[in-house]
């Protein structure tokens, strides 16, 4: 997986007390017991850690970790172009 994905995993472990072993690319945030309130927090953390702008509802509990990483990458690319 990408460096973005790896960094996202580190944030989930470090900031959201998710067990590293439970995380996988196809695992949804809901499966990680992260509800919509947690995702608002996650978007805040992503904005400051990756320096990208995201709407507060950019991620939903049914998104997978890989989908979130892809979203971050697309926003990073958009910001760079």
């Amino acid at each position, binding site marked *: 997986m990408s460096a973005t994905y790896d960094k996202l995993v580190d944030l989930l472990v470090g900031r*959201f*007390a998710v067990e590293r072993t439970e995380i996988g690319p196809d695992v949804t945030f809901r499966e990680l*017991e992260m509800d919509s*309130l*947690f995702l608002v*927090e996650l978007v*805040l953390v992503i904005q400051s850690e990756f320096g990208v702008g995201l709407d*507060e509802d950019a991620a939903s509990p049914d998104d997978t970790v890989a989908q979130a990483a892809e979203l971050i990458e697309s926003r990073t690319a958009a910001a760079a172009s």
Partner: protein
Amino acid sequence: MPAPALAVTGLGLVTAAGIGADTTWERVCAGVPTAARNPDLDGLPVDISCTVPGLDPVRDVGRRSPLTHDRFIQLGIVAAREAVASSGLDPVTWDGARVGVVVGCGLGGVGTWEAQHRRMLGQGPDTVSALLVPMLVPNMVAGHLAMELRATGPNFVTATACASGATAIGAAARLLHDGTCDVVVTGGAEAGVSPLMVTGFARMGALSRRLDEPAAASRPFDADRDGFVIGEGSGMLVLEREEDARARGATVRARLAGYGASADAHHITAPDPEGGGVRQAVRAALRQAAVVPAEVDHVNAHGTSTPLNDAVEARTLRKLLGDRASVTSVKGVLGHALGAAGAIEAVLTVLTVERSTVPPTANLERQDPGVELDVVHGAPRRQRVRVAMSNSFGFGGQNAVLVFTSA
């Protein structure tokens, strides 16, 4: 028809003395104050407090606790778990619909509130946590206990400032008296040692300014007292009807025999100098307990160490009870845990009854001559306590008095 007798079957404490009811009991009996300088209050007009040492939210509460619980909720969860465990009841198997939760809290998640407000002012509204509201509203301590304990009966928080914990216990008793619940987990939780709150209390002139000597600052009933020392913590009790507790073979630690509540209707912060509201609450509590003033063996006083509270409380107690009852204030050791104080003191009153031991009032070196009471000081006193009263009085003139009797 008389109200059914209520049994206290579980106790839990988290205080500035540490985690666990026995830890606090030993410290208050030793009479060693917990007040100390607090680096988080550096630069403020008052920088001393009594804070809970060594609570690790991840270890002691749960791995996501720092994300979802303000500190007052963490303190409440730890104390409630101890209380329920010591009752011998099992939340996995109990009928949760018959279990109520009533917790006193005067402030709520002020630490979270202040941190998020700073963030909003400094970095803008887009940086404010979505968990701000669920972390700060006071009712969430009871809400989290419901989730924690699978308790789906009536669930609420009482706010009567520094009487909140005692008010909660009184309200909980009603749920057992009227048959709404079979078990109630009740007490108080508060974590108000925040820069803004401490400053607010300091601006009121309520806090001790003995900053160079923090351990001596909280000195209830002493002639040289000059205010309270702010504290934090949680006290929790498990209450059941005595008949039910006996039927399941539980140890009855003491009985909750009476509760009285009143309002001074006098002033926003000062107590009624005539003690009219206190007298009314004491009489109501004794009446419900079916005891007369001369039968009261012991009073766990509100005893905040403010000049006015202690003077009025002492005068009122003397008029009502004479000088026969032993009196103590544990705030000399623990400081004033605000909305949790009444519950912490209720737990300690139960232990006083159960263990026939009255903890001393720390720092009582020269008793105020206006305090014509038998205030225990210097060392714990062995005393058979059949009837004990625990007083709590809140700003706003809200009074709550509990009466415990030996089992």
